[in-house]
């Protein structure tokens, strides 16, 4: 049984991170309604586990639960997405000498699409790093992989995004 004050503490400490939770769920499920359901489920799970939370970074703790809830949901509903390989072929056209990225307003939409197209385990490290500003160590904790894996996933994902943003729209490859 839980003390009522636990719910009050939960509301004060955890509910303020709802945007972060929803943002991660939205990027991982790529759909508004599913993200909302997953976020809600994650909060109810978090409430259940809250008694065992020993303090520290509440947002990272919550995001771990959101991430795991998303993966459970993906396994149940979109199992093929979990098996999407990282298409190394897409790198083949890249020169050793990186072009300079020029970002205009229209490119933001390209960036969004390119992010959505990344395999989920690459997408999550990008979201946690670039939109949540989390350290490698915290990302490693959330995604349950070694820090080295976080670094290599970030590097490969960024290479891909850079390629999308520098490729000539007339060139046909996106």
């Amino acid at each position: 049984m839980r003390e009522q004050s636990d719910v009050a503490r939960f509301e004060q400490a955890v509910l303020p991170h709802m945007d972060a939770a929803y943002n991660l769920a939205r990027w991982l499920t790529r759909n508004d309604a599913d993200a909302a359901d997953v976020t809600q489920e994650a909060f109810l799970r978090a409430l259940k586990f809250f008694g065992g939370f020993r303090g520290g970074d509440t947002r990272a703790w919550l995001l771990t639960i959101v991430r795991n809830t998303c993966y459970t949901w993906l396994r149940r509903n979109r199992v093929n997405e979990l098996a999407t390989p990282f298409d190394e072929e897409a790198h083949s056209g890249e020169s050793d000498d990186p072009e300079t990225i020029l970002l205009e307003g229209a490119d933001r939409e390209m960036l969004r699409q390119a992010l959505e197209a990344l395999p989920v385990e690459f997408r999550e490290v990008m979201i946690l790093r670039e939109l949540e500003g989390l350290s490698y160590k915290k990302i490693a904790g959330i995604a349950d992989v070694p820090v080295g894996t976080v670094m290599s996933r970030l590097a490969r994902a960024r290479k891909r995004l850079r390629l999308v943003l520098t490729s000539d729209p007339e060139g046909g490859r996106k």
Partner: protein
Amino acid sequence: MSCEGMQNLIQGYADGELDLLGNLRAEKHLKDCAVCARDLQNHQALRLAFTGESLYFNAPPTLRGRIRSAVRASGNAEARPGSSSWRWMAAAASFALVAIAGWSLLLRSRPSRDELLAQEIVAGHVRSMMAGHLTDVASSNQHAVKPWFDGRLDFAPPVEDLAPRGFPLVGGRLDYAGGRPVAALVYQRRQHLINLFVWPSADESDDRNRMVVRQGYDLIHWSRAGMVYWAVSDLNLNELQKFAQALQNSASRDDRRLKR
């Protein structure tokens, strides 16, 4: 590329993940290597592309309400009474009342899903009056209320304005019943409010009206065309039946229109 091994260093530098020694090493290399300097520029350009609101999905306001209610309801269901504010005491008391009402019935009949649902529906109705959260979308226009549910639910609840029959639509909101998000439509009859809860039924079978009284509230529930409906109000049962009838009549008109 000569500085293959430097890529991790440059990335760590761009991410601010290096210690002092690492930073010095990176800066020294960046001074000498134009390729890595360009690499760093690209890191920074990409970083810049991520800033701003457009890539960040903020939680929709309705989800905030939904999660807040779900957390409270869940906390409420498990919490010990006695250590909380009056509102939770009141809610706990109403749960207890429902439980007692339910229990006396349980002694006579087997416990059913409907029994549990009736409790949830009454609790949802009471909460909607108590918490000042009657509607998420306040509109008497069915064409404004219906699309509001798009993307918030995995089904499209039928929304009818019954103003011509004396039950004007007030609005709609998201609620939670039977272990799933449901649509709650709010109608009015004089000073009385009616909450109509709608969600897809597990099977396709139609079910005629069933009436229940809980805690002084009348409830009518039925299922039809793959949807479950629960209407609850402090209105007298006679008028609530008229409401259900009006809703079902306008739905059958739609059925006929579809079949034609």
